[in-house]
C-alpha cells in the first residue's frame, strides 16, 4: 500500500477536486457559460481539436523560436559582459531598464516594427526569456572559485584558456538554471505575444488569439479547453529542458548526483 501512495494520493486529490467542481456547479446552479463542467470542457476540446492542435503548434513554434533566440542571444551577451567586469558595469543597467519595461508596452512597438504575427510574437517571447538567462549566466561567469583562478594562473593559462576551461564550465549550471526559468516563461511569453500581436489564418491563430476568439463567441468550455492545452504545452517545454539539464550535469554536479 505504502509504495503506491505516491500516485494514489494525487489521484485521490484529483477525484476530490472534480467532485467539488461538480457539486459546486450543481448546488449553486452555475450556468455552463460561467463555469463549464469538466466533461463539457473535454467534449468542447475534442470538438475543437483541429483548431486547438494547430493553435498549439503555432504558439509552440513562437515559444520555441523566441526561447532559442533568447538562449543564444543571452549566452552571447553574457559571454561578452562576463569576459570583462568593466563591460558588465557599463551595460548591465541598460539590460535592467529593458527588463523593467513591461511587455504590454513593448508589444505595440514590436507590432509597429515587425507587423502583426510570428516575428512580433518571437520578439515578445525573446524579451521575456532573455533576462533570466543573462542574469544567471553573468553571475556564473563572475562567481568562479578564486582557488581555481590561482590554479590557472600557476598553469600560465591565457585569458581565453581561463574562459574556455574554467569560466564556461563553472557558469554552465547557472546558465542552465537561467534556461530553465526561461523555459517556463517561453510558452507564457508566446501566448502573451499572441494575445497582443497575434493574427489568424482561416479563423485559427495561436493560443492567445483563440482565447480572444472563444471568449468573444462565448464558447466558454472551449476557452477552458484552450487553457488545458496551454498547460500541456508548458509541461512539454519544461519537461524537455529539465531532461537537457539533467543530461548536461548529471555526471558531476552536486545537485543531480545520486546519493551513494
Amino acid at each position: 500500500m505504502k509504495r503506491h501512495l505516491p500516485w494514489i494520493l494525487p489521484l485521490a486529490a484529483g477525484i476530490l477536486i472534480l467532485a467539488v467542481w461538480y457539486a459546486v456547479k450543481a448546488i449553486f446552479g452555475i450556468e455552463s457559460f460561467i463555469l463549464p463542467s469538466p466533461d463539457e470542457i473535454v467534449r468542447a476540446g475534442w470538438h475543437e481539436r483541429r483548431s486547438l492542435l494547430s493553435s498549439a503548434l503555432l504558439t509552440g513554434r513562437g515559444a520555441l523560436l523566441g526561447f532559442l533566440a533568447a538562449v543564444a542571444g543571452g549566452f552571447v551577451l553574457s559571454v561578452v559582459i562576463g569576459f570583462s567586469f568593466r563591460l558588465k558595469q557599463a551595460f548591465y543597467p541598460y539590460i535592467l531598464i529593458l527588463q523593467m519595461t513591461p511587455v504590454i508596452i513593448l508589444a505595440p512597438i514590436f507590432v509597429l516594427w515587425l507587423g502583426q504575427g510570428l516575428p512580433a510574437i518571437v520578439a515578445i517571447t525573446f524579451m521575456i526569456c532573455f533576462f533570466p538567462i543573462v542574469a544567471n549566466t553573468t553571475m556564473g561567469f563572475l562567481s568562479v572559485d578564486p582557488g581555481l583562478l590561482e590554479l590557472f594562473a600557476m598553469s600560465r593559462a591565457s585569458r581565453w584558456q581561463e574562459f574556455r576551461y574554467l569560466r564556461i564550465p563553472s557558469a554552465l549550471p547557472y546558465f542552465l538554471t537561467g534556461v530553465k526559468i526561461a523555459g517556463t516563461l517561453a510558452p507564457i511569453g508566446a501566448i502573451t505575444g499572441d494575445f497582443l500581436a497575434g493574427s489568424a489564418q482561416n479563423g485559427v491563430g495561436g493560443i492567445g488569439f483563440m482565447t480572444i476568439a472563444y471568449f468573444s463567441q462565448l464558447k466558454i468550455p472551449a476557452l477552458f479547453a484552450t487553457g488545458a492545452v496551454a498547460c500541456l504545452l508548458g509541461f512539454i517545454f519544461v519537461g524537455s529542458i529539465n531532461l537537457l539539464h539533467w543530461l548536461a550535469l548529471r555526471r558531476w554536479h552536486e545537485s543531480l548526483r545520486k546519493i551513494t
Partner: protein
Amino acid sequence: MTSAPLVRLERVGKRFGEGPAVLAGIDLTVERGDFVSIVGPSGCGKSTLLRLIAGLIGPSEGQIAVAGAAPASARDKMFFVFQDASLLPWRRTAANVELPLLLRGLGPAERRARVGQALELVGLTDAADKFPWQLSGGMKMRASIARALSVAPQILLLDEPFGSLDELTRDRLNEDLLAIRERDPFTACFVTHSVSEALFLSNRVVVLAPHPGRIAHVVEVPFAYPRPASLREDPVFLQLLAEVSHRLRAATPEGAAR
C-alpha cells in the same frame, strides 16, 4: 661554481591595501634540493609568503627572485598545491592532472605519458576515470599532488595540503611525499601548522611569529633522507619536536593562537 639559490627573499614585506603589515622583513633563501617548511600560528602570513614566492601576489617591499628571475616570469619552474585540492569538479582525475599540461600547450602524446606517470607516482592509477566527488579527501590531495608533479616543477609550493585530513592519512601522505621525492627530486616550500609534519618532511623549518609575520626562528633538521616512518618515534626527533613547539609557542603572543 656556486649556483644562485633557487628562491631568495630579501627584506620582503607585504600589506594589503591600507591594512596592517602581514609580513615584514622576511629574509629567506631556499637552495636547490631543500625541503623548507614554514610553520606558524593562524594568521601569521604563511600562505601569503607562499603566494609571494609563486608570484600570485606582489610584495609591498623588498625583492623576491626565483631562479634569478621575478616570480611571475618563473612560473613555469613552479607549481602550487592548494589547501583544498582545487580540482575542477567536471573533470575526471586524469583530466584534472592533465589540465596544467594542456594549458601550458604540451602535445597529446606527451600529456598522456606524463599523466600516467604522475598518477602512478601517487598511486591513483585506478581512480583515473573518477570524478572528484567520488574521491576521498586523501585521494583528492593525491590527485592535486599528481597534477603539480605532472609539470615536473623545480619548486613545489604546498599550502597546508594535508591540513584537513585525519592524522593517519596525513602521516601516510607525508611518507609518500618523501618517497616520491626520492624518485623524482624537487625543491619544496611547505606551509603547515603542524610542527611534527614540518620536522618529518623538511631539512629546514622556518618558524613565523605573527603581527606582522616575521621569521622568529630557523631550525636545521639533522636527519638524513630517506626517512623511515619510525623517525617519528626517535628520541632525537621527539626532543626537537618539543623544542620547536616551544619556540612556536614563544613566538605566538598570549591569546593570538586560535
